[in-house]
Every structure is written in structure tokens, then in C-alpha cells.
């Protein structure tokens, strides 16, 4: 009898599957086939060719080394930040400031960080001028590391901060009572429970660095990384699609492995039977040291971003530092640039609307319907796949699949690409939220004579409203800042801000670049604010309930794992 009532769920399931078959499976398979296409059918020739070149092996080594280095630094710094927030007696305002500032870089495209670094530490940079000399050569290792650290700091911080929130502090008391010294107490009650998360943070950061295009595009210099090789193979002076496909597959591999390891590591999270708040021991030295390091890190990040607010407002950096609004006025007077901003808004809004629908549809099927688990497994599988797929790889797959079709150079292709690219996190957010609701609602409603869809519309959806709003915001902000996939797909009429920035880079028009970056930043801040307001009271309420529920969940031993995963997803670009 239940089966009969599943028609609607099945239709939704089918729609979701058709969507991903057409815009995920088809392009991905095409990419795979392309990588094996030799002069006479199937061959490994392209692989041999790519791996045979000196440059590629070097780029691959570079990528691994610098991504690993960046991830270690980020994870350590993020740990200090999270520790300061969770385990010291610094003021609440300070803690709140840390939480806000640490995630700010997420609101800007990575390509902007690179230019901000150039204007901070480059030959004519703000700090070079202030200090009277250039501290280090920014093109290459140093620039990449700084960029990667800023880029991944929010992710690492959120992950570690979250887990720290779910560590039972009573163990600290026990440890102290047992007579442990400060170090072993720290290792046993803070570091040890965090090992899993620290590893996840490292891998997550590694994945982000390894697949990012914006930072090496701006400050990579002669230090070649895989992302740049990939771009050159596809859009370089002498493109070679087959070899590009090979590089894409090579880029995909570490991504798949890293996500798989994260999945595996989750099992090793230590789960506490309950959470207890305790007074944090007074320790002025610790507090001061932590606050100092945290302030230094955040000041550094803020300082790098400061130039974005300064450069566009002075007449002729760095020689004529008088204030002017001309640059901003010029950008707004240039119809080509305002049109690009309009395009970005349009793409982001459409992505957000459709993305929310897609995530909701998929999550409703897996969390609130009774169709067979095999069907649900398909959707779970899709979510995992989109999670491992770097934006560049997806962009290239789209380019191969849809060039020459009526989708080429349309807004639709950008929106579709974003929908697929960012699907994993919104889906998880949605599913977690839906799964928490009382499962007997549908049954009760059915007894009252409502169909499944009516229940969804009348009960489930209103209750999921604040998550829907958050999902909307996630899609919107990510669509605003992404460059890796859309760089291959945007046409003259469908340029978005991030792809325009890449174009402006060629002409070294940094004023325009920074003004456009500020537009993205303010738009995203506004979006965040509106989402806060919309989710409003409900959101706060839900947080409280969620908190209580989590405590309960921890009792059943099912809390933190899902949360880490949830947040690991949340920050993927």
C-alpha cells in the first residue's frame, strides 16, 4: 500500500536523476573517453604523452608539495584560532570577532586574493612601501602559500571550531585531578580528540589548494601547478583537448582519494556521551599568547584585504595617494562592467532558486519518502560524486559536451554547471534538516486524508524554511565567487564578474578588478544579512532546538560525525 503512494516521490527522483544523467554523467563520461582517444581509437597514448613531458611531472610535484605545505600551515593556524575561541578566557567580543573575521575570505573569489597579495607584498605593494623593502618574492611559492592559507583558513577553522564545541570539557577536570601536567592534559583532552578532525582539515585544505585556479592564475609566477597546466591545455595557445582531459583525470584522482579518506576518517571521531560546560582555568599567559597569535593571523588576513579597499580609492597607486572616487565612478559608468555585474547577480540568483529546488527535491526523496533504499542510494551516490568533482574538471567536461550545442555561451550552461558543482553541501544541509523532523508527520497527515505532496507543502516545507533559506544563500554566495568551472563556459554575453576579472588581469586593470571584487563582497554580505533576517527568529529557535537535539544525539553516539561532514561539505568551492 505504501508503494502505491510513492508515485510522486518517484517522479521527483526521476527528474533529479535525469538532470544529473544529462549534466553530470554525460559530460564526465565524455571527458573520460576523450582522455583515451588516440589517433586510432582507444589508447593510452595521451597519458604517456602528458606524463612524458618534463613540465607536467614538475607541475604535479609542485602541486602536491605546495598544497600539502599550505594545508599544514592552515590547519595549525586554524587550530590556534579555534583554541582561542573555545579554551581561553579572552573576552566574548574578541571571540565573536574571530568567528566573524575567520570566515570572511569565503565571500571573495580566490582570484582576488592573489591580486590583493600583489598589492600588499609586491614591488609596489602597501607593505613593501611601508617597510621600505620587499619582504619576499611573491610570485611563486610564497604568494601561493599566502593565498592558499587565506583561502582555506575559513574551512579549517569551521571544522576544528565545530569539533571543539563537541568535546566534553569535564575530561579536562579529570585530567587535572589525576595530576597531569599542562602539556599532557592538553594532549589528552584537547589534541587527542581532535586528531580525526585535524586530519580531515588537512585533507580538505589539500583538496581545495590542489584544485584551485584563481590563486595560481594571479601569483603562480613560474611555479607551475596542475591547475595552470590544465587551463593551458584547454585554453592555451595550442590547445590539446585529449591531453587536457588526461590532466583533468589526473586532477580528479587526488580529489576522489581525499574525499574518500575523509569519509573513512569520520569513523574515528571520538564521541562523547554528553557535553558539559566547565569553567576554563584561569591562565593569563595562555590567554595572552593565544590572543596574540590569533590577532596576528587575523590582522595579516585583514591587512591583505585592506588593499582592496584602498587601491581603488586612490588616484595613482603608489605614487599619487590622494583620495578619489573616479575609479568607482568609471566602473559604474562602463556599461560593459555594470552588465557583467548584472549577469553575475542573475546567474547567482537563478542558481540559488533552482539549486534550492534541486537540493530540496533530492533531499525530500531520501529523507521523507518511502521509496526503496536502492533508489535513495542513487541520489546519495550523486551527492558523493559531485563532492569529489573539482570545478575545473566539471567546467572542462561541460565545454567538451556542449560546445556547438545551443547551450554554448548561454546563461543556462553557467547555471546548470553551478547547480551540479555545488550540489553536495546543500543536499546534505537539506537532508539533515529534513531527517530531524518527526517522521510520523506523513502518517498522521495521511490518516487525516492528506496526500504526501500536501503534507510536504503544508507541514514539511514550512518547517524546513530556514534551511531552505540557508541553502539558497549557500548557492548564491558560491555562484558569486566561483571561477574554476565557469571560466571555460562564459561567453561574451554571459561574462560574470569572476571571469571578467581574469580578462582584466591581462590588461593589468587592477582598479577595476578591485572595484568588482568589492561589489562581490558587498553583495555577498548583503545576501548573508538578508538570509539572517529571513531565517530570523526561526533560525535562532532552530539553533537552540538543534543544540538540544545534538546533545541527545551524542547520547546515542551519532552527533559530531555528521556535523564534521556537514561542514566539510559546506565550504567546498
Amino acid at each position, binding site marked *: 500500500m505504501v508503494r502505491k503512494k510513492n508515485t*510522486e516521490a518517484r*517522479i*521527483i527522483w526521476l*527528474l533529479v536523476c535525469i538532470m544529473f544523467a544529462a549534466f553530470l554523467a554525460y559530460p564526465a563520461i565524455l571527458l573520460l573517453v576523450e582522455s583515451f582517444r588516440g589517433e586510432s581509437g582507444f589508447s593510452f597514448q595521451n597519458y604517456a604523452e602528458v606524463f612524458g613531458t618534463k*613540465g607536467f611531472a614538475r607541475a604535479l610535484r609542485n602541486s602536491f608539495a605546495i598544497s600539502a605545505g599550505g594545508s599544514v600551515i592552515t590547519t595549525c593556524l586554524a587550530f590556534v584560532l579555534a583554541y582561542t575561541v573555545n579554551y581561553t578566557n579572552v573576552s566574548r567580543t574578541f571571540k565573536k570577532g574571530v568567528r566573524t573575521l575567520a570566515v570572511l575570505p569565503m565571500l571573495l573569489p580566490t582570484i582576488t586574493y592573489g591580486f590583493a597579495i600583489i598589492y600588499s607584498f609586491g*614591488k609596489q605593494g602597501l607593505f613593501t612601501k611601508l617597510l621600505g623593502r620587499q619582504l619576499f*618574492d611573491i*610570485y611563486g611559492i610564497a604568494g601561493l602559500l599566502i593565498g592558499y592559507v587565506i583561502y582555506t583558513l575559513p574551512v579549517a577553522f569551521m571544522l576544528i571550531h565545530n569539533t571543539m564545541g563537541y568535546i566534553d570539557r569535564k575530561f579536562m577536570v579529570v585530567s587535572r585531578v589525576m595530576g597531569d601536567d599542562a602539556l599532557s592534559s592538553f594532549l589528552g583532552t584537547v589534541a587527542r580528540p581532535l586528531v580525526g578532525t585535524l586530519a580531515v582539515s588537512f585533507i580538505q585544505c589539500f583538496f581545495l589548494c590542489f584544485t584551485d585556479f584563481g590563486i595560481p592564475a594571479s601569483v603562480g609566477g*613560474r611555479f607551475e601547478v596542475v591547475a595552470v597546466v590544465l587551463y*593551458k591545455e*584547454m*585554453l*592555451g*595557445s*595550442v*590547445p590539446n*583537448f585529449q591531453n587536457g582531459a588526461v590532466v583533468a583525470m589526473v586532477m580528479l584522482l587526488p580529489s576522489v582519494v581525499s574525499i574518500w579518506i575523509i569519509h573513512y576518517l569520520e569513523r574515528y571521531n571520538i564521541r562523547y556521551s554528553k557535553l558539559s560546560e566547565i569553567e576554563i582555568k584561569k591562565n593569563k599567559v595562555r590567554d595572552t599568547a593565544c590572543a596574540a597569535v590569533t590577532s596576528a593571523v587575523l590582522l595579516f588576513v585583514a591587512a591583505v584585504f585592506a588593499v582592496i579597499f584602498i587601491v581603488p580609492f586612490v588616484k595613482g597607486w603608489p605614487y599619487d595617494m590622494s583620495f578619489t572616487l573616479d575609479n568607482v565612478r568609471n566602473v559604474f559608468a562602463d556599461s*560593459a562592467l555594470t552588465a557583467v555585474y548584472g549577469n553575475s547577480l*542573475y546567474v547567482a540568483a*537563478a542558481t540559488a*532558486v*533552482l539549486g534550492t*529546488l*534541486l537540493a530540496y*527535491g533530492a533531499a525530500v526523496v531520501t529523507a521523507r519518502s518511502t521509496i526503496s533504499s536502492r533508489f535513495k542510494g542513487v541520489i546519495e551516490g550523486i551527492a558523493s560524486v559531485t563532492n569529489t568533482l573539482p570545478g575545473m574538471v566539471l567546467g572542462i567536461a561541460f565545454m567538451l559536451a556542449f*560546445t*556547438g550545442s545551443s547551450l*554554448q*555561451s*548561454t*546563461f*543556462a550552461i553557467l*547555471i546548470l554547471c553551478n547547480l551540479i558543482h555545488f550540489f553536495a553541501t546543500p543536499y546534505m544541509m537539506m537532508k539533515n534538516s529534513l531527517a530531524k523532523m518527526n517522521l510520523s508527520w506523513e502518517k498522521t497527515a495521511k490518516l487525516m486524508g492528506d496526500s504526501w*505532496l500536501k503534507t*510536504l*507543502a503544508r507541514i514539511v516545507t514550512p518547517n524546513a524554511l530556514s534551511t531552505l533559506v540557508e541553502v539558497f544563500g549557500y548557492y548564491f554566495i558560491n555562484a558569486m565567487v566561483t571561477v574554476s568551472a565557469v571560466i571555460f563556459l562564459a*561567453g*561574451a*554575453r*554571459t*561574462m560574470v564578474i569572476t571571469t571578467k576579472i581574469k*580578462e582584466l588581469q*591581462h*590588461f*593589468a586593470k587592477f582598479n577595476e578588478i578591485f572595484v568588482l571584487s568589492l561589489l562581490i563582497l558587498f553583495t555577498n554580505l548583503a545576501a548573508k544579512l538578508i538570509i539572517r533576517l529571513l531565517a530570523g527568529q526561526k533560525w535562532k529557535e532552530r539553533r537552540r532546538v538543534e543544540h538540544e537535539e545534538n546533545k541527545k544525539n551524542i547520547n546515542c553516539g551519532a552527533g559530531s560525525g555528521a556535523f564534521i561532514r556537514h561542514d566539510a561539505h559546506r565550504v567546498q568551492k
Partner: protein
Amino acid sequence: MVLALGLLSGMTLTGCKNKAEAADNEVVLYTNADDEAVEAMKNALDNHGFEGKYIVQTFGTSELGGKLLAEGNDIEADLITMSSFYLESAQKEHEMFADLTFETGAMEEYPAYYTPITAQEGAIIYNTEMLKENDLPVPGSIKDLADPVYKDMISVTDIQSSSTAWLLIQAIVNEYGEDGAKGILTDIYANAGAHIEDSGSGPIKKVRAGEVAIGFGLRHQAVADKEEGLPIDYADPSEGNFTLTESVAVVEKDSGKKDLSMEMAECIIKYGREELLETYPIPLYDGEKADDANQSGNPKVFSEKLSVDLLEKHQALSEECK
């Protein structure tokens, strides 16, 4: 509700299409040209009735080159201005350009599907004050730049991303053969160190700023700087001043925009050249004349026909020297 979902997504998607298609009657111009040239072309078009009927999309040379070779007729653009050798290679591979239907009046013979908008010559550019300050001799040839006295004092461009570098490499390959060129280029790269630039105007910027004493770049830029009174001078290398032209071509498409694109191409040549000549002073059309300063001392042409294949060969050569 499913219906509503479906309908809504359908509507939004068609909405996107409509928005893109609404602007579909505009001609899309892809170009690798520098700012000044783009301005000149825009002015010509705007002043002759084409304002609002086109949109311009600029690219780096390598990016646009890649797009031409990769996409062929599928390319979004209707009208293209680009390095001539790239147009030739793309035409050979995809037969993607239509023959021009107007009388160009060019001084030389070009293929039927393109006509040049600018020509750019390479030369050695130096900062007179920096040379004096560091007690360096004025180089007379590109080979001179390989001399260790110029260590960290020269700036050149990278042929991987800039076609200006090709003007240098053509000159030395032409003069000393490939093997000879390799030795010289290796030493030049060693001298240039961190000053191997991605953009064609990179070296002259560094020479102006005094970060290096000597650069290899576009001759007309140095002429203009010198006339402006900057401490910049130039030398025509004994290996020769080589030239690259950029040209306009119309993409062969079924769409009704081909005719409009053709009119625009004609307009750019007919009315744009005057302003283009201000920045790129080499005469290309009947009736144009260069002043003496812009008449290079030693113009030469590479023995082999320029093509993307040849560029690739020279890129490989350059990579070996790094």
C-alpha cells in the same frame, strides 16, 4: 507540486535563454588587441552608426588562439581581430572565415579572408640613465644581450604567452640557426632571471621604471616614450626588426549577422586606421605614411611562413633554454 517544480525550473531555464537570445542580434567581436587598438576600433564603429550593435570581448593572444583552434565555426564570435598567423592556421584547420567582400586597399597582398589592422615591430629598448649609471654599453644586437655584463639588467617576454617574444626568437633563429639561437636564448634567459614577462609591454614597463636597463619590446612604444622626453631610446638589432600583423576576419556562419559583421570589418579598416596609426605607426594601406622615427632601420621577414606549428616549434625551443 511536481508540476510546479518542473514548470518553474523549465521557465527559469527558458528565461535564461531568452535573456541571452534577446541580445542575439548584436555582433560579437573577439579580439586580442591592446586597449588603444580596441578603443580605436570602438570609436570607428560608434561614430559610423554601429553603436549598440556589437559587443567586444578581449582575450590574451594565447587564449583567443586556443579558442579559434578548438572551437572553429562553433565560436561565439562573429567578427575577430587576431594575430594573422593564428587566423591562417585556424582557417587551414576549420575553413572558418568568410572572404572579405570589400576593397581593402592594402599595400601588400593578403589572403582573401583577412586584412591587417596593425603591424608591430620588435626592437631593443633601453633606459639611457640606467645604462650610464651602471656603466653598460649600448647593445647593437640581440646576441649582445646574452653577454654576462647585462646580468639582471634585461627584460624579455615569454613566447608561451606573448607573441612579442616571437619577434626576438624569429630574429635569432633567422640569423644564427636553431642551435645558435638556443645558446643565445639560454644566456639571455639567465641574464633576465625574474624579468621574463608574460605580456608584450612588460619589458618596456620595467625599463621605464628603471627596474632593468634594457628590454626587448615593441618598437613604436619606445619611439613614443622617447618623443615624450622619457630617458628611453631604442636600437634596431643587427639581426633585424621582425614584424607581426594583427588582422580582422569575419566568421563564416549561417546566421544573418555575417553581412553586418562584414560592414563592421570594413568600417574598422576604413575609419579606424587613422586612430590606430597613432599607436601603431607602421603604414599598411595605400596613402598611409610613417614618419622617419617610425621607419625601422633593419626590417626583415622570417624565411619560413609563420604558422601556429612554427610558433609551437619555437615555444619548445624556448622551453629548452629556460
